[in-house]
């Protein structure tokens, strides 16, 4: 048992003197993701969006806490539930809506859609519709940074369902061996689609990275401060050549697995949902704290909400008006 030799992840107390503005900005980001996703749900329910989407509502603090600890040139890889990661990494609402509607102004010229948004300028290497499919890509971006002598880090977001994919273990082994600057962020929202993760996950989550000597911590994914501190600590380690780390963020999706998953009683109770919604909402939690600390007033937060709503409305308007790609684009970008 080499457990004792695994470095311990600190809570990141060195980062505690974060400025009030930074917390307020995180609040804005949380709200932006929430409002964006509500609008996406609306688009689905009113049959204005082609296909489907997996909403991030309830899990916002994970993406925001992690991405606030990153630089613009740091990399992320994302998942089928990826809108939150994109926005937290700085994507524009306009181009995201355009992508969801299959418009040429979208991040992928309408070719990717909800599950494939990539934003190269901000290091977002793309959402991925293969569960666990980006574990190698994130590690490869980290290897690339290491080889180029850059001090970028890469964050690999994935749901706890991805713990079922062997690829993750292959890659964690190499990340540990080569001390790659990659951070695994496991969003444990308790469900793999319609199955509780306890039915699919033997042992504990953190024991898995630890088996490869990768330090791991379980944190409250509904508390953006906890996420931010833990992530900042992992990022510093990775950036200074100390290798990979793993965070298990306990969280919950308030909506269904995807927009059409409406009758959910057969796999989870309404009571469980209500407990999370009322007692563990990441936005309420940050808001109360900000007000408590007197770093924001209820009014200033309302104002942020209103500003965000305007951004969302304008972004959607833009996307609805935007043209579809030209038919000739179907054959473009197959090869570079």
């Amino acid at each position, binding site marked *: 048992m080499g457990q004792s030799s695994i470095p311990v992840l600190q809570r990141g107390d060195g980062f505690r003197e974060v400025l009030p503005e930074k917390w307020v900005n995180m609040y804005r980001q949380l709200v932006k993701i929430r409002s964006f996703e509500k609008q996406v749900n609306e688009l689905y329910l009113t049959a204005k969006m*082609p*296909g489907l989407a997996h909403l991030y509502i309830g899990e916002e603090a994970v993406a925001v806490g992690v991405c606030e600890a990153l630089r613009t040139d740091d990399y992320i890889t994302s998942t089928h539930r990826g809108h939150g990661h994109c926005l937290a990494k700085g994507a524009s609402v306009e181009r995201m809506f355009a992508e969801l509607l299959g418009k040429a102004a979208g991040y992928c010229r309408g070719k990717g*859609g909800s599950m494939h948004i990539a934003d190269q300028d901000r290091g977002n290497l793309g959402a991925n519709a293969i569960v666990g499919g980006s574990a190698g890509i994130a590690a490869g971006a980290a290897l690339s940074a290491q080889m180029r002598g850059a001090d970028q880090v890469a964050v690999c977001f994935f749901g706890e369902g991805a713990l079922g994919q062997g690829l993750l273990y292959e890659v964690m082994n190499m990340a540990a061996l080569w001390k790659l600057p990659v951070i695994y962020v496991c969003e444990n929202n308790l469900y793999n689609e319609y*199955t509780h993760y306890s039915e699919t996950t033997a042992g504990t989550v953190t024991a898995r990275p630890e088996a490869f000597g990768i330090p791991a911590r379980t944190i409250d994914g509904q508390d953006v401060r906890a996420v931010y501190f833990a992530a900042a600590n992992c990022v510093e380690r990775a950036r200074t050549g100390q290798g990979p780390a793993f965070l298990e963020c306990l969280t919950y999706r308030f909506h269904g697995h995807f927009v059409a998953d409406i009758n959910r009683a057969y796999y989870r109770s309404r009571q469980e949902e209500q407990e999370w919604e009322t007692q563990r909402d990441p936005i309420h939690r940050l808001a109360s704290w900000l007000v408590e600390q007197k770093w924001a007033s209820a009014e200033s937060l309302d104002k942020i909400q209103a500003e965000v709503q305007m951004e969302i409305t304008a972004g959607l308007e833009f996307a609805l008006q935007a043209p579809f790609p030209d038919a000739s684009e179907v054959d473009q970008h197959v090869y570079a």
Partner: protein
Amino acid sequence: MSTPEPAARELTLAEAIREALAEEMRRDPRVFIIGEDVAEAGTPFKVLSGLVAEFGPRRVIDTPISEAGFTGIAVGAAVTGMRPVVDIMFGDFITLTMDQMVNQAAKIHYMSGGSLRVPMVLHTTLGATRRSAAQHSQSLHAWFSHIPGLKVVLPSTPYDAKGLLKSAIRDDNPVAFFEDKMMYKMKGAVPQGDYLVPLGIADIKRSGKDITLVATSSMVQVALSAAELLSPIGIEAEVIDPRTLFPLDKQTLIASAKKTGRAIVVDEGYERYGVTAEIASVIAEGAFYDLDAPVKRMGARDVPVPFSPVLEDLTVPTPESVAEAARTLCETISAS
């Protein structure tokens, strides 16, 4: 044509599949189902709904998201006396099962000199136009068709689906069974109780004398619709569904092409190096002296499936495009 009398009961294709499974599981205690969200959820397409209620979670087994792992487990179960049906949610995920299916399942009987057998079914989907983008829309059945040791089945009607699936389950070899997810709600007559559609017998879905349309899976309906468009302009198309790509009923295909002198092969896999190539070259060789025009191939456009509906709809053959190709082909002056 082996379709039953019109008075028969109608089922959707999903119901026909479910009925085949239920009947086989009742008949043979060795048959079981294994895959992601197959039990209470009955798969996202609800194809397996209700089976767990009758057969219990020991015979309808929910798995972690581990396609390679549970396919391998099925191989081991099959070799030791069980008859597993493995459910792979989207055909795109067979990428993860290739080693277990191709290096293990397909070869064990041969490598063991006939002493071991692998009676298993890999049950999965194909087909685009669901706005699911590049990683959830592929039709990758050509890969398995390439591999000695595997059989490959593609039903096109509820009747065939039930009878073919029962044959596949009773077959002593690994069989890959692909359903177009866009066909699950398609209705058709399905007899109650036991009947088999043998593997390796093509079905003439429509008789005609002017041109042969060989079509697979949902492309059979496309070809039939094309035939309806052609009839008024004096072209009577014969529509043939091979139903199984291996074994392939070459004789029926060649005989039809000899009769009509013209043939189009329509399949939803990528066109290049795909199913249309095999069938076209079988016909071109077998009916060489009777063909009045080159065999035409219509597969999916050779691009990753784009999300935007305006682009995605350009990637698959349609009744109009098939009818147009047939008309052009029929105008070709005979070579002989």
